[in-house]
């Protein structure tokens, strides 16, 4: 890790805290699942924190992101609050999407998060369209499209990359290569090189260590600036690893991934541990101060979970609201009633 610790101490501390917040969020979400308090399944972001934080710390609140089924990390990193997030995961009225979306559709419009997506690759068009819109409106906004290695198999990506390159759109395609697409190794589903695919459209492509938050932040900061100058699009392939199974229910997974491999990533390449170590080596935070961040975040998460567990479900009358913009109740409207 190379950077100038003197100048940016506050930024570094915030990055550390945001990574810790993602981990704490996921640990709590996993507990909610294991104790049968959370409806449905969810995909843990744990292990990939440096990607979301390194990238989102290079963006403003007005810049946009599109997220994935593994989206809690992106949501936190883009500025979301725990309370509204846990409420959403539990299907409560105060959730970001009033309980209608849940884990796989969490969106935080106020912070530029256009939403998670349960269709793999489903957000590639959306992100590119957001960049087209920014260019047309001339508002200088940049869009980051997060997706996994598995999503590179979707044809949509090649269509939108072509247009983004033709029209120099301010979009950064950020592929989180965590080595697996569900229960299959990336090598078995991706021919050739991912960066070369982007390069064949004339898009500059970079391979980055996704466990190194400063490296991710540095390259993203540069690319965001260049996007604002009309030099986009760009492609980032971020090498990373998911610590849990594909989803919280994927517990016995040795048939596709060894325990040794998991242990190795956790022990030697953990983004939080390594960045914490660097912060203390650089005398930006002491061990005690790092510990204090951890416990503050843990308390914040616990309070949010307790709140969400007690929070009310949406009222039954909400079920047919928000189907159409400008229509209060869809069922009346569909039957020819007035909006």
């Amino acid at each position, binding site marked *: 890790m190379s950077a100038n610790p003197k100048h940016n101490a506050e930024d570094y501390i915030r990055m550390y805290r945001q990574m810790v917040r993602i981990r704490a969020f996921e640990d709590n979400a996993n507990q909610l699942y294991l104790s049968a308090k959370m409806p449905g399944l969810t995909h843990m972001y744990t292990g990939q924190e440096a990607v979301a934080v390194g990238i989102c710390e290079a963006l403003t609140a007005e810049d946009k992101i599109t997220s994935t089924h593994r989206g809690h990390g992106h949501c936190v990193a883009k500025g979301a609050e725990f309370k509204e997030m846990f409420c959403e995961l539990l299907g409560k009225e105060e959730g970001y999407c009033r309980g209608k979306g849940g884990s796989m559709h969490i969106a935080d419009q106020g912070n530029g998060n256009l939403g998670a997506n*349960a269709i793999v690759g489903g957000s590639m068009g959306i992100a590119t369209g957001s960049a087209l819109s920014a260019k047309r409106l001339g508002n200088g906004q940049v869009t980051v499209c997060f997706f996994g290695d598995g999503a590179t198999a979707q044809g949509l990506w090649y269509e939108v990359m072509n247009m983004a390159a033709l029209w120099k759109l301010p979009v950064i395609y950020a592929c989180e290569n965590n080595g697996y697409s569900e229960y299959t190794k990336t090598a078995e589903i991706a021919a050739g090189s991912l960066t070369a695919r982007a390069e064949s459209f004339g898009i500059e492509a970079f391979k980055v260590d996704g466990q190194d938050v400063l490296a991710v932040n540095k390259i993203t900061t540069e690319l965001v600036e260049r996007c604002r100058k009309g030099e986009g699009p760009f492609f980032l392939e971020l090498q990373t690893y998911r610590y849990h199974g594909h989803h919280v229910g994927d517990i016995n997974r040795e048939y596709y991934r060894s325990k040794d491999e998991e242990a190795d990533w956790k022990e030697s390449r953990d983004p939080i541990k390594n960045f914490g170590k660097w912060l203390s080596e650089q005398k930006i935070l002491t061990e005690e101060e790092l510990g204090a961040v951890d416990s503050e975040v843990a308390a914040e998460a616990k309070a949010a979970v307790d709140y969400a567990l007690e929070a009310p479900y949406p009222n039954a009358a909400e079920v047919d609201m928000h*189907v159409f913009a400008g229509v209060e109740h869809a069922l009346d409207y569909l039957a020819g009633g007035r909006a």
Partner: protein
Amino acid sequence: MTREITLSKAVNEAIAEEMRRDPTIFLIGEDVAEAGTPFKVLSGLVEEFGTDRVIDTPISEPGFMGMAVGAAMTGSRPIVDLMFGDFIYLVMDQLCNQAAKTHYMSGGKLKVPLVLRTNMGATRRSAAQHSQSLQAIVAHIPGLKVAMPSSAYEAKGLLKTAIRDDNPVVIFEDKLMYNDKAPVPEEEYLIPFGKANIKRAGRDITLVATSSMVQVAEAAAKILEADGISAEVIDPRTIVPLDEETILNSVRKTSRAIVIDEGHQNYGVTAEIASRISEKAFYHLDAPVIRMGAMDVPVPFSPALEDLTVPTAAKVVENARKICRGELVHAA
């Protein structure tokens, strides 16, 4: 000999038996081989048939669907596994513009013998993109057959028929039923398409129900029996083709009908069946035919909302009681 097996096992057996019989059959889809799909429906098949015939794909639905169409036109009989019914939107062009029309457009010269297995069904708290029941969208397209098994027994017999059919067939399995057990014979059997199953005989009202809604209709029929209302439950088994005769004969006897399907109600399967009854048995009817589909909203995540969107036995009972008393279900 009959034993009880899960719907998941029934599907697995149907595929294994057919693959042993016909070497031109292959399976293709995401995580179908070693993982045996997220629902573990296909576990064990790759061990028996190898990766040449049980083919794992990247997440490229339009790509492998299109390849299945081409393979089917050239001597293979592919079974495509589409992990969630909701992903049918991704393969619509290959399925509806290519597979469905090729036989017709070629003047009967080309055939597309393929099976697309996928699923349907809400209330798993999987939200709007993993919970839809999209059978109506496919059933709308001429050239596609559509089967909707309502138990393990049905799943096995219908799938074997689908695999032997020379046309593209789409099968929707209810995700919630994969672990439901039913008696299934050990001997081979096939269930022909277009032959409805009278699950329960009755005099006063006909309940036409598809897939897991058959269970809902049967539960409603039991409750209605205690009221002195005798309900006949009919499972069409395939919605394309639809066994009109069995349905119409039933309604001519009972004079009343409710049609139940988990797809959206607007422009849906229930609308089609209800209108065929109204057109063809109008003078036998004592009450308007009632459609009961999923509420016309995207499937919400929150359990408090999701449960409101699907037909339930209690709602079927309420509607049945009303029309048997001569009341309107939908007051103007």
